[in-house]
């Protein structure tokens, strides 16, 4: 039975249900369990719901050690940028133990953090920095765009035996959507085709999925049929769904809030250029943020980021730039 709840409520519901299901699941963070009335403290007690000092390295490292010892900690790291304080523990310890031990230990750890808070939070609190984690061996990365996916990906993350970076988009926090009430799991590595179409494949993550859908609606009025794909997890990355779509549409537009050279779109573009070249009827178009920090000034913030108008323009560029398929194949 689904009902409409917010994105953040869906995430917390996913954690709550997994804590009920498995007593090894812990919730740890710098601002969790603030009072005895807190729903997590009330349900699971202060031993499993633990507030930590502002010590990201010790906090994440301690959780990683607990994971190696069989616990399944969820660390609420608050903001994605705070992970940068503890990079050794995020990308060089728990995520490598399975491999370095020859497969003998696992580290089931979830690092939850918000990102992309482009609401005047300026240079150090607005980044879409998932690009620097998606190529890290042993670390999975989830980027939910809807409340239902947020709950389902969180549940899957907690049950996964590997470290998972669960990055939720701050601008979606209070967006609502239908979410199943009971157990709800969304598999990793399976992209969602959130709007089918035939002329152009449009891939987006997080908050930009909704901007891509708006752009698709606008383009439909002009007779351009856009297929919108949300990878949902970027590690593992479902390249096959994108390739299959490009095979049908022949055109690929990638939307990404990240800086262009550390974006998911750059990776997908490379994969499709290598494995899907014969399908392409136009150059791949990337609609990304600039390779710049996010400015504080509102007009400048808007200028840096992808928006509906830029996505529409990107799709038109792909459609207008169409080359004869024979020419494309002749190059080979």
């Amino acid at each position, binding site marked *: 039975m689904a009902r409409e709840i917010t994105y953040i409520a869906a995430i917390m519901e996913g954690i709550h249900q997994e804590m009920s299901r*498995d007593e090894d699941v812990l919730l740890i963070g710098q601002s969790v369990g603030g009072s005895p009335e807190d729903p997590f403290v009330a349900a699971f007690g202060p*031993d*499993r719901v*633990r507030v*930590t*000092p502002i*010590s990201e*390295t*010790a*906090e*994440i*490292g*301690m*959780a*990683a*050690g*607990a*994971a*190696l*010892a*069989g*616990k*399944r*900690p969820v660390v609420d790291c608050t903001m994605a940028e705070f992970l940068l304080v503890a990079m*050794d*523990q995020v990308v*060089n*310890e728990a995520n*490598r*133990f*399975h*491999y*370095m*031990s*020859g*497969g*003998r*230990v*696992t580290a*089931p750890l979830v690092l939850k953090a918000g990102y992309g808070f482009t609401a005047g939070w300026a240079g150090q609190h607005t980044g879409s920095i998932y690009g620097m984690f998606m190529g890290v*061996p*042993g670390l*999975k990365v989830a980027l939910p765009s809807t409340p239902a996916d947020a709950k389902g990906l969180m549940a*899957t993350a907690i*049950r*996964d*035996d*590997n470290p998972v970076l669960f990055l939720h988009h701050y601008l979606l926090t209070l967006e609502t959507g239908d979410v199943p009430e009971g157990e709800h799991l969304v598999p990793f590595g399976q992209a969602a085709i959130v709007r089918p179409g035939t002329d152009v494949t449009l891939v987006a993550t997080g908050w930009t999925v909704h901007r891509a859908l708006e752009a698709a609606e606008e383009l439909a009025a002009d007779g351009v049929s856009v297929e919108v794909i949300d990878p949902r997890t970027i590690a593992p990355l479902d390249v096959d769904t994108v390739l299959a779509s490009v095979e049908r549409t022949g055109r690929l537009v990638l939307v990404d809030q990240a800086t262009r050279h550390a974006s998911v779109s750059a990776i997908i573009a490379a994969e499709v250029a290598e494995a899907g070249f014969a399908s392409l009827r136009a150059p791949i178009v990337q609609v990304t943020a600039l390779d710049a920090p996010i400015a504080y000034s509102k007009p400048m913030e808007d200028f840096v980021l992808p928006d509906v108008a830029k996505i529409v323009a990107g799709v038109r560029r792909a459609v207008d730039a169409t080359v004869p398929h024979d020419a494309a194949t002749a190059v080979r």
Partner: protein
Amino acid sequence: MTASVHRDVSTAAPTPDVLRDLLTTMWRIRAFEERVGALKRADEVHGLIHLSIGGEGVAAAVCRQLRDGDAVYSGHRAHGHAVAKGTPLDRTMAELMGREDGLCSGMGGSMHLVDVAHGFLGATGVVGGNIPLALGSALAAKQRGTDAVAVVFFGDGAVQAGLFTESVNLATLWRLPVLLVCENNGFAEFTPRSAHTTVERVSDVVAPYPLPRTTVDGNEVGEVWSAFSELLARARAGEGPALLECLTHRLRGHYEGDPDRYREAVSTEDWQRKDPILRLQRAGHDAGWLAADEPAALEAAARAEVDEAVAWARSSPFPAVARAAALVESGGAR
């Protein structure tokens, strides 16, 4: 609980049987390490190798008092801790030689030894990175209601890293059963302690925190044993973390191949005074629990065991390269 510095470690002295056990372990580590050094020079052991010759007393005295269910974490200089905790010499040697039958199937190597069955949860290669991991093992033990503890070995160089203080703060705040064992050999990699900090003793760094802290002569194995015994009993009884600082000497350079120009060579006489094995043997002869011919027999037995380990390791194949990416992620879920 108040902070206290325990310097009187006369209580709980190890028995002659325990001391003989410790001596046996120290010889096993010494023979293993010397052989690893030789194999490194012969390129049979490849990669970055840090030997623990000189630190055997600390490894032996601490690990002899632990159980398989207690977690031990070590750093880049990990072989001695692993052997003392019970990892088999043959599979440990096979790991250093990058073989399929190594502790980690040849995928971890010298700085990433793991042996879950013996509670050697792991060595990590980034200085200090292991300290918060040990806190996590301690938290898990505490939450399960057991009296198991976690022990983490680190050098004095790790103490200047922010995560050391973060970890001490968190361990005391949550009263975690974790024992922080610092091997202070006076050098942080290539630099004397005096060039890194104004605080001479590591035990003084944690002075503001409510945990017992003890500094002992790490070359005096009985002293290490007694001091650790007291701190371990507290941790098992739920009384929280403790710090043991062991003043040791690293006979070899930071890594094998290190030109070691940053410190003066120790004279043979000096080393014979410091060497924890020779010291224990002298003490054993003086006290009468060690017969005159026993050291030679212990050394010979240790070297024979290492010979067998090397032969066994050599007979193990290298892991199939086709599996290079197979273990990046676990396929498991709960």
